[in-house]
C-alpha cells in the first residue's frame, strides 16, 4: 500500500506556516490560496483560519496542498505537537522590516527539529518586501542564514503578491525531489489497516480493502 512514486497519484501535501506573530503568515496564506490581501490587523481579527486547500500544477501534474496556519498558538509558543505531524514542508516566515522576527527563526527551527521528521523541507520566507524603506534584514543576510540552516529562501510580499506563488512552488518542487518523504516504510510483517473515517459508517461485512 505504500506510496513510493509521487507521479502515480494526485498527491496531497501538508504544508505548515510558522514564525512570530504579525509577520504576515495568515496574509501569505490568503494571498496564496484566495489571492486576497488582508492586513495584519484584519487577519488578527479573522478567527477561524485553520487550514486552506489549494491545487497547484507542476510540470503537468496536479498536487493538492493543505496549508496550515498557527491559529494564534505561536504567540506564547504553544503550538501542539500534532500541528507538526505529517507535514512535508514548513514555511518559516519573518518580516524583513523586523530584525527580531528574523533572529527568532532559530527558535522555530528548534521546534521543527523536535516535532518534524528529519527530511521535512524547510523554506525561509522574508515577507513584507513592500516595506523596503523600513527594511532591517538584507536579502544577503537571509540567504546566508537559509544556506546555513539547509533551508530554501525567498523574499516576497503578501501585499503585492510578489514572490508568493514562487515560494510555494519552490517548496513543492523540493518536496517532490525528496524521496524519503514518500516512502512510508512500514515493516513488512505488520498489518496496517487504513485509518477509519469517523464521519462515515463505511464498513460493511463483505468488504475489507486489505
Amino acid at each position, binding site marked *: 500500500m505504500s506510496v513510493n512514486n509521487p507521479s502515480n497519484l494526485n498527491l496531497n501535501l501538508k504544508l505548515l506556516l510558522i514564525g512570530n*506573530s504579525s509577520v504576515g503568515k495568515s496574509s501569505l496564506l490568503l494571498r496564496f490560496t484566495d489571492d486576497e490581501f488582508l492586513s495584519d490587523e484584519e487577519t488578527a481579527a479573522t478567527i477561524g483560519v485553520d487550514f486552506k486547500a489549494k491545487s497547484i500544477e507542476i510540470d503537468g501534474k496536479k498536487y*493538492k496542498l493543505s496549508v496550515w496556519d498557527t491559529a494564534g498558538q505561536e504567540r506564547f509558543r504553544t503550538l501542539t505537537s500534532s500541528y507538526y505531524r505529517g507535514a512535508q514542508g514548513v514555511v518559516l516566515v519573518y518580516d524583513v522590516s523586523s530584525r527580531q522576527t528574523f533572529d527568532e527563526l532559530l527558535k522555530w527551527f528548534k521546534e521543527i527539529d523536535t516535532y518534524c521528521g528529519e527530511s521535512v523541507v524547510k523554506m525561509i520566507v522574508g515577507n513584507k518586501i513592500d516595506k523596503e524603506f523600513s527594511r532591517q534584514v538584507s536579502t544577503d543576510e537571509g540567504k546566508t542564514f537559509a544556506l546555513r540552516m539547509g533551508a530554501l529562501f525567498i523574499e516576497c510580499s503578501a501585499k503585492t503578491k510578489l514572490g508568493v506563488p514562487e515560494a510555494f512552488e519552490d517548496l513543492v518542487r523540493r518536496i517532490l525531489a525528496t524521496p524519503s518523504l514518500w516512502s512510508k516504510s512500514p515493516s513488512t510483517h505488520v498489518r*496496517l489497516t487504513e485509518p477509519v473515517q469517523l464521519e462515515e459508517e463505511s464498513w460493511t461485512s463483505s468488504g475489507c480493502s486489505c
Partner: protein
Amino acid sequence: MSNPELESDHYDVIVIGTGLSESIAAASLAKSGKSVLHLDPNEYYGGEQASLTLDELINWSNQHASSSSSNSSKYHIRYSSSSTTSLTEELEFNKRRYSLSLFPSILPSRGQLIDTLISSDVSKYVSFRILDSISLYTSTQTEKEESGKFRKVPGSKEEIFKDKSISLIDKRKLMKFLLFTAGEFEQDDLLKGKENQPLIQFLQETFSLSSSLSESIIYAISHCTSPQENTLSALQRTRRYLKSIGRYGNNAFLVGQYGGAGEISQGFCRACAVFGGTYVLGPSASLTSIETTSEGVSIKLPCHPRPVTASHLISSPNHLPSVLIQRNSSSYTNSNQEEQFITAHCVAITKTLPAALRRNTLDPDLKDDNEEIENDDTAVVVFPREGDNVVRCYVNGEGTGSCPPGQYIIYLSTALSKEPSNAKSTSPSEMLKPYLDKITSDSIFESYYISTRLSLTSDIPESSDSIIILKPYAGDELLTEGLDWEAKQGEEAYYKVIGKDGKQFFEKDATEEEELGIDQDDL
C-alpha cells in the same frame, strides 16, 4: 514580542488544565462565541491524559517517585511509587519518537467521545485505526512448568461462526446471550431480580454458558475487572460495546494514533485556538493567586501585568488551591461516600513482536493469500486471575505512530484492592513484572507507578457558581470507559457555563454547513 502579554484583561471563561475534558469544554465554549483563555502549568499538553515523550515520562516519573501519595488536595488523582529503568544510548537518541500515554485507553466506536469528535469536526486532526485483536491468556499448569497461550476472542458474529474452537451448541448459547445483551434487556424477565447478581453467576445460571465462554465474555467482551461485577451495570456497558461492533470494522474499539488521549486533547485545543482561544502553557501560566469576586473570578499570572478576570473558571481539581475546593467540605465529607480506586501501572517498550500479536499461520483466513502473514499492530490482552482483579495489557505498535519502527509499547495495569494499606505493601513492579514477562521477555525500557483516583458520589463542592470543577475518571475500567467519561465531563461543563437553553454543544451554524458542503467537493 519576546515577553508577550495577554491581549485582554477579561475573558468570558478561563480554563485551567489541558486534559481531555478541559480541552473539550474550552473548544465547545470558544465555538459558541465565548472568549476563552486556556492555561496549563505543565509545559506539555494533555494533563492527566498527556502522551509524553520518553524523556518527559522520566521527568514525570521522578516527580512521583515517593511511595506515600501526597495529600496536597484530597481530590487529586495521585501518582506514587514510580520508577523507570535508565535509558540506553539508542533510547536516548530516539526519546522524542515515543508518545507514551498516561491514560492508556481504547475508544468504543459508539459513545460520547466519538459523537463529540464528529460534531466538533476535531476528527480531522486525529487519526484512528480499528483495534486489531483482543486476546485472553490461559495458563496451563501442566507438568513441571507453567506455560500459557494467548487466544484471540472473536469480536463479531462472523468471527464467532468461523471460530472452530467453539462447539455448535456453545455458539448457539453465546449468540442467544449476545442478542439479549444488544437489546432492551432492562425489562426482560430473564434479568428480573438478578440485576445485582455477580455477572458470572448470571451467565452460567441464566444462559448456561460454560466457564470458559463466561470468562471470554466477562473479560474480553464486557471488559469487567472482576467476574463479581454487578450484572446490570456490566450488561449496560456490554451493550454499548456490542453496538460499536461493525460501525468501523470487526472490532468494537478504535485506537488513537500517537498515544491516543493526549493527541485527542491537542486536537480540541487546536479547535479552540481556531475559534479564537488563547493558549499559555508552562510556568508563565501557573496561577499566583485566585479569588472569587461578585462577577466571577480574578486571577494573577506571571505572563500578564494586571489581574485577569473571567465570568467562569473551569478546572480539574488538581490545579486549584484546596481552599477553593474544600470550602464547604466538612459537611460534604460526612454526607458523601467516597471510594478510592488504586491501580498499578506499567509502561514498557520492546523490540520484539509480542507473542500475543502473532497471527497463527494455520489461520484459514490467511492461508489463501500467498502474502506474508501479517501480524497485529495493536492488541488488548487480558490475564484473568483466580480470585483477583484482572490484569490488562494494551499494546501499540509502530502503526500507531507512538514508537519507532519495529518496536512496541506495552501498557499493563491492574486494579488493586481498594484498601490503601494493601496497595502499599507491594510495589507496582513486583505486581506487574510477571505479566510483562508473559508478554515479552526482552523489554528495553520499563516504567512503573501507582495511581489513586477518588470517586465522588456527588458534585465536588464549588465555592462559587463561577467555578466549575471537572471530575476526573474514577473507576477500574479506564481502558474502555475513560475517554467517554472525559467527553461527558467536558459537555457538562459547557452547559454549566452556557445554560440548558443556550446554543447546543458544538452546534453548527448555517453558513458553516454551506462551507462544509463546498469543502467536501473541493477536497
